[in-house]
């Protein structure tokens, strides 16, 4: 059954207003867009075959904006949702890498060569993701900062620009979110 496509502009607005179903649909659409864009750009980039995440997000934004026209909301609002989708892509990627590593006899070797704690594995990423969802209930802004910085790799400066606050404010938000998530995952720290 063919569903009439909602413009992403409309989905964004509805999601901002608390429409849960629009938000879900938005995530699905963005996921598809990001994937498509990554494939396109990977082809264009030629031999390197790779493409940076933040650039990917920017390009996708431009692509959708030019398609939907002048009424498309600004970058900052878009990035909030897109970075959330990116979180999912990052976790998927980690999951695939982990599956690849589980090669039985090679597992111990590969753990040896990887410095413990160097790679954040898929399990912890999932926990972080859940903790982020819980955090988003209280404070969407903080969760967004983590999505933008940790999962999508934007710098504090870039995030500050998007959020129209000072870089120091973003740092503080990051530290607050960090403390909160740490508590969710590791429990209350001793005095």
């Amino acid at each position: 059954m063919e569903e009439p496509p909602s413009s992403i502009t409309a989905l964004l607005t509805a999601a901002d207003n608390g429409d849960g179903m629009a938000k879900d649909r938005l995530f699905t659409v963005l996921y598809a867009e990001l994937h498509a864009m990554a494939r396109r750009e990977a082809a264009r980039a030629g031999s390197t075959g790779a493409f940076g995440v933040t650039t990917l997000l920017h390009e996708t934004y431009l692509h959708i904006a030019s398609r939907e026209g002048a009424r498309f909301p600004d970058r900052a609002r878009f990035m909030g949702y897109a970075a959330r989708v990116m979180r999912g892509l990052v976790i998927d990627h980690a999951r695939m890498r982990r599956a690849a590593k589980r090669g039985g006899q090679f597992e111990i070797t590969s753990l040896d060569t990887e410095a413990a704690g160097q790679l954040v594995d898929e399990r912890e990423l999932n926990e972080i993701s859940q903790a982020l969802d819980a955090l988003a209930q209280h404070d969407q802004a903080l969760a967004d900062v983590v999505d933008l910085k940790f999962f999508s790799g934007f710098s504090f400066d870039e995030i500050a620009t998007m959020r129209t606050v000072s870089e120091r404010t973003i740092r503080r938000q990051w530290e607050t979110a960090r403390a909160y998530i740490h508590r969710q995952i590791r429990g209350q720290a001793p005095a």
Partner: protein
Amino acid sequence: MTDANPDRWSAVHHLFSEVLDLSPAARVERLATVRECDASLALEVELLIQQHAQAVRDRFLDDEPERPVHEPTLEGQTFGTYTVKSLLGQGGMGTVWMAERTDGRFERRAAIKFLNIALVGRGGEERFMREGRILGRLTHPRIAQLLDAGVSAHRQPFLVLEYIDGVAIDRYCDERALDAAARVELFLEVVSAVAFAHMNLIVHRDIKPSNVLVDRDGQVKLLDFGIAKLLQDGDDGATVTHPTQAGVGLTPAFAAPEQVSGGVITTATDVYALGVVLFVLLTGKHPAGDEPRSHAELIKAIVDGEPPRPSAVAPEAFRSVIRGDLDTIVLKALKKAPAERYGVVTGLADDLRRWRRHEPISARPDTVAYRIGRFARRNRIAVGGTLLLLAGLSIGLYVVNRQRAVAETRFRLVQQIANELFNVEQDIKALAGATAARERIVKTSLDYLERLTSDAGGDLGLKAEIAAGYLKVAEVQGVPRRMNLGHLDQARVSLGKAEALLRELRDARFDRTRTLRRLIQAVDFESRIDYDRRDLPALTARIAVLEALVAEYEMSRERDDELLTEVFDSMSTSIIELGRLDDAATYARRATDARREAARRMPSTAARGALANSLASYARVARNAGRLDDAERALTEALALLERMTVDEPANYRWRLNLANTSISLGRVLGDADGPSLGRLDDAIAAFDRGLAIGRAVLASDAKENLARNNHALGAWRLGDAIRMLDPARALALYDEAIAVLRGTPGGNFNRDVPLVNVLAESTLPLRRLHRDREARERLDEAKRLAEPYRKTPSQTSLLVDDPISRAEADWALALRRPSDAVSWHRTFATSLESLKAAGADPRTELTSAFVASRRYRLLTEALIAAGQTEEAATVVAKRGELVQFWKHKLPGSPYVESVLMR
């Protein structure tokens, strides 16, 4: 069960952010101040600080996860005459790469900035390159040269810039701990660069600290001159969807008001940005404040908000240097209207040089009158809206005084207080001095009011103003339920003075309605203090006075319904304490009537929402007063309103959640197993079912929503309670549903733990009935573990967790034929109930508490009989009877007292 409190989180978050940057000593001090007002807030923040320290030690989230895609390496690629060498970083506009000349001819290194923008069509690209060439002609030792502008094969625009190895100017100054004078020196160099560009008709448009670098030789270099204009889509004057996307650099935080509101960009725009930079250099803070805020709030701050005096927010060591002329210079650069600033940057530079030479500057500071005027016109509430009220007071008195051509001394007093208020207002903004600042206001104001009173003589108009002044000061000092310092006795003194003056005015029939209004406020405030102190005799007298005044006020045509609603609500609470439940319910109903009237006159969702809330509050009071029919009617009306609102605003799921909540409240009134109800079980089940269905539906569309989760659990719990006798298996399923949902929410939260304890305990009954004893024991033990932290201090909360646990244990003990154990469970609870009367759980004041007590007596009686202690049983029966009689006497009109209490 209430929803998780967003204001609470916001408070915790703000305070945490604030103290994070403080030195340990300053942090301790700050938290100590907070602890006086709100101990649990201080505790939560302390815990979070500990947590953060651990997170840092663990290097938590320091390493970023592997990403599915990697940054492309542009290494070796050529753009113009440059070849890319390595990645420098990511800025606000895009990625920056380091490059060198391909032909190796000059030593010069360049930075290539790839811009994340779309150039519209071929025309866009040509314009970009053309404008880039114009900018490239700007050559100055203090300006980073734009070497080339181009568009890559992928159609991405890029800029080739002189590579500057330096740090942002604010960091530079902090790292070298430069004093104020040295910073001004450095700043003057920046200004000279900007002046040069202006002579060449180029406005920067995006001056900010990160665009002003200082290189290894201590030379200032400005970046990105005019690039903001380059990045605009389309020509100046084209329509844009977002004012901030046009005309503004990419950093709205440093934007001038005209940039943000779409006005004309001139050299004065750069003056403003320079003013912001200077402000930051001198104080370390942004003039609009550093709290995180929404886009709209920031815009408002830029356009409307007045920056504080730099000397007020600067670090201690700088204050005396900055105070005075330097303040004036910065503020002039930051004026909202471009015409009031320095028109050309050289004007700014000149004044700074004059300051350096201790010569008089050209800028004039604002006059007191000007500042007072601006201050009064602002409608932004600073920390403590009372400050604004006091400011209003001083202005009112100022105006009054001017009109009366008063004596010199009094006039100077007014000026003093105005100045004081200004200085203090800046302190308040720096948060650290909030309480101290308010206390200063209070002291100054009290002195002032005292002196005015002795001067006032027969001047009734002045006395009216003084009375209003005392009222406002009292609010700050300590009127409960308003933000205050907690000095109740002092507040009482101020209120007494206000009241005395107002009575005098009343006797003189001066400005009758307004005087009456203020008198009602004064007496209402006093009654709240009496209530807080549980001073019942005083409260009784006060309420009598208040009732008379209110009755009179209601008849006046210009009456303020908002005030009446507030006073009715406050009276309702106080009167309950006096044991006049019926009257309390009446006043609550009158508050509701007032709200209904307001909603009728100006129907809006907000008004309807307020009415729905008011009806729910009324229903609570009514239920406690045994007026169950009224409670049912009120809740039914609220439901109709909320239904209407969910139709009007279908996307707003909060209305639906409120609908669910209210349905459940109605269910409890109809047939609560745990409190006063009408005993109509079938109707109750229907209401609970409905609440649960809505909760489930909301949760289905947004599974993460905590409020929905809470509602869902609440509904399942109450429905389970209602049917646990009829259908234990289904009840258990519902309890399990509630438990699952609650377990899914993070613990350590009263709103989640207490209900979970309740449901776990209640669920043991059906579990045992189904012979699943082991699970029942596990659950009961888990409930006890969860309840532990809440039982530490005997309080209403401890009762909330003790009640279900002790009942469950006692019931089990009876089933195991250990009646003496059951007896001790019940007795312990009954004792704690009695000892907690003072904590507000008095079975003689509220029907809900009476229900709990009565039920407990019954259970205790049964256990005693089973244990063969018939004499004691008789005593308890008598106690229960006494309680019932007491209530029948208390609520003679209610048909429900007996049925509720004898259940």
